[in-house]
């Protein structure tokens, strides 16, 4: 056994040596989305400015990232110096005192340049707890060629009625063209993000002002019926397992007539991997005549755990990654269409960025989402496509499973709603919201 062990020690020793060249190492947890992978590719630029700081990337799939990062921050494990988290986590973790305030980032970073809707979502008690890396809303992406062939014209601000009509006209199952692709995979950040945003435009809400779940109401029934009707008749097969990615693949292959999803998808469906890049149009998320649109608001943001040993280095990195200079750097390397969107006013004032086909639509979508007042009736919570309480991850996913079961045809819409109501009442009672 002896040789094995010394070989083993030798190998570990080598690893330790090879990372010892920098004065300080930052461990950055991030999600494997395109914009973050691009950021990782630009590490050299950061190192040129801060030669003493080494960046150690932990790039993970969203679910694994969330699980690892949540466990670590809640137990004060101290494994990461910079975290990539979303608009859902920031207010909750900020309130717990787990995140460092970013109010003291340098003046040239220009906090006042952030889009107000995005900045508001990342601020608790006047403290900015995370710097937005990219922001997104949701919108309709559609195939201009199929729309024309169907003899229809997409209005800039369509109604759900029009979406149904267009989906019907575009569907051609024999040629594997499905009128509409929507999320169906269970998860609070998957189908429930879409359905919650959609339900807002139908006047539904998660809770009334006394935190009573509302799934037994008319508005949710209408939402779910409409969604199921749309997907069962004009959606792709296996939709109950389709999330953002699956739908993106389908759209890029030319199998979707319309797709309502995150605005960041725009750069992918018009990008190099797409077979339909030059045939994509954009429109605002649909409404139902009630004064609310079915679009959400999200920002992947960089936050720093309050317990980090490398606070200054971490702040230097966060400021670099979310700065105007970083945007310019990406634009210089990969073109304006690929810069991280949706965080700064100055970006949308830039004439070069205005030339990007989806720029204005993205900005309008972001600006029209209101996290504090998401739906028709007043709500006690913050969040458009989520409810910013710690319990929501669990509840949202369980409800999402019910709805995806309804989509898979295992349950009726009424049964799914009844089950959702029961489990939400139970969870909210457990958590002490309902006395």
């Amino acid at each position, binding site marked *: 056994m002896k040789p094995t062990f010394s070989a083993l020690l030798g190998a570990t020793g080598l690893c330790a040596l090879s990372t010892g060249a920098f004065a300080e190492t930052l461990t950055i947890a991030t999600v494997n989305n395109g914009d973050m992978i691009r950021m990782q590719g630009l590490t050299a630029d950061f190192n040129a400015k801060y030669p003493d700081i080494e960046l150690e990337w932990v790039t993970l799939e969203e679910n694994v990232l969330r699980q690892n990062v*949540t466990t670590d921050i809640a137990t004060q494990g101290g494994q990461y110096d910079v975290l990539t988290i979303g608009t859902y986590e920031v207010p909750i973790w900020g309130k717990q005192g787990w995140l460092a305030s970013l109010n003291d980032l340098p003046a040239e970073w220009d906090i006042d340049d952030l889009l107000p809707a995005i900045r508001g979502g990342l601020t608790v008690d006047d403290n900015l707890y995370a710097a937005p890396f990219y922001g997104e809303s949701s919108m309709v992406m559609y195939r201009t060629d199929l729309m024309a062939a169907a003899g229809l014209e997409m209005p800039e601000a369509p109604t759900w009625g029009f979406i149904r009509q267009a989906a019907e006209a575009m569907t051609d199952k024999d040629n594997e063209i499905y009128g509409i692709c929507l999320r169906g995979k269970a998860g609070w950040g998957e189908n429930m993000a879409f359905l919650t945003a959609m339900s807002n435009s139908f006047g539904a809400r998660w809770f009334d002002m006394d935190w009573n779940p509302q799934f037994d109401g008319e508005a949710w029934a209408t939402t779910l019926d409409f969604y199921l009707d749309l997907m069962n008749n004009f959606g792709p097969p*296996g939709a*109950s397992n389709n999330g953002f990615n699956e739908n993106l693949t389908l759209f890029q292959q030319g199998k979707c007539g319309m797709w309502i999803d995150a605005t960041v998808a725009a750069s992918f469906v018009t990008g190099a991997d797409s077979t339909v890049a030059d045939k994509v149009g954009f429109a605002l998320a649909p409404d139902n005549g009630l004064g609310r649109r079915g679009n959400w608001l999200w920002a992947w943001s960089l936050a720093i755990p309050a317990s980090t040993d490398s606070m200054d280095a971490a702040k230097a990195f966060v400021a670099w990654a979310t700065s105007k200079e970083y945007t310019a750097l990406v634009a210089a390397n990969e073109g304006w269409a690929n810069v991280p969107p949706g965080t700064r006013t100055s970006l949308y004032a830039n004439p070069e960025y205005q030339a990007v086909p989806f720029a204005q639509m993205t900005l309008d979508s972001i600006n029209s989402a209101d996290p504090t007042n998401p739906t028709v009736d007043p709500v006690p919570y913050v969040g458009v496509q989520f409810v910013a309480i710690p319990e929501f991850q*669990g509840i949202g996913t369980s409800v999402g*499973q019910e709805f995806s079961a309804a989509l898979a045809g295992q349950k009726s819409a009424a049964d799914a709603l009844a*089950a959702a109501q029961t489990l939400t009442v139970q969870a909210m009672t457990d958590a002490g919201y309902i006395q």
Partner: protein
Amino acid sequence: MSTQASRSAARVMLSPAVISLLIWMIVPLVLTLWFSFQRYNLLYPDRAGFVGFYNYTTFVASPDFIQAIINTLLLVAGVLLITVIGGILLALLIDQPIWGQGYVRILVIAPFFIMPPVAALVWKNMFMNPTNGLFAEAFKALGLTPFDFLGDAPLISIIIIVAWQWLPFATLILLTALQSLSSEEIEAAEMDGAPAHKRFWFIILPHLSRAITVVILIQTIFLLGVLVEILVTTNGGPGTASTTLTFLVYKQSILNSDVGKAAAGGVVAVILANIVAVFLMRAIGKNLDA
């Protein structure tokens, strides 16, 4: 000759294993038991406190619980059925004189080396996906509507994936056992004019019984803990159609950050697993007396 000296030596030598396993089992178990009586959610540590059996009652009373137990048993039974029967047939086939036996064995073993996330990702995306998977292409080529494996038959799909991973293990053990069967016995039976199926039922199968026991026992231990495959492919759904007990605990622990309820679920899972184990030992344990 089992002297006092060797007995005490035996105890000394057994102790590192027993002690480390004891620590491994007791420390988490005690902590888990402790947490299972607490209200402890990672996301609001300030609301912690003793809650008695509350975590247990809500875990067991949840409508998903019974479904999860049924799904767990179906998953274990389904995979065992496929791998044992498939393994016997495959072992019989490979044991025949064939050309390139070594290569065949290499190909058959391969799935055993594949890490679960990779296996699940490949099956999900490249085979079972109803628009881009190879199965869908095969259905289309035959003029049929592609079947939505993970949506319409989630548990069966997971059983297929897990069975694919474990078939090599079963085959190998059964093959080794088969090869230890002396050919004289078979030849004698053939001389007596016993037809093939009788040779199988009365000579081969009894000879394999110990190997089958081993396969069932070891696989059950691993199968009760299957999680990654479910996580990657269906996330327990649609609905709760593929939620197993382990997945239910995962949901509490990771998605709800509810350490208390996850701990209660863990204790329940351990109790149930031990019931299964006792049951298994009763049913087949006599085969293990060596």
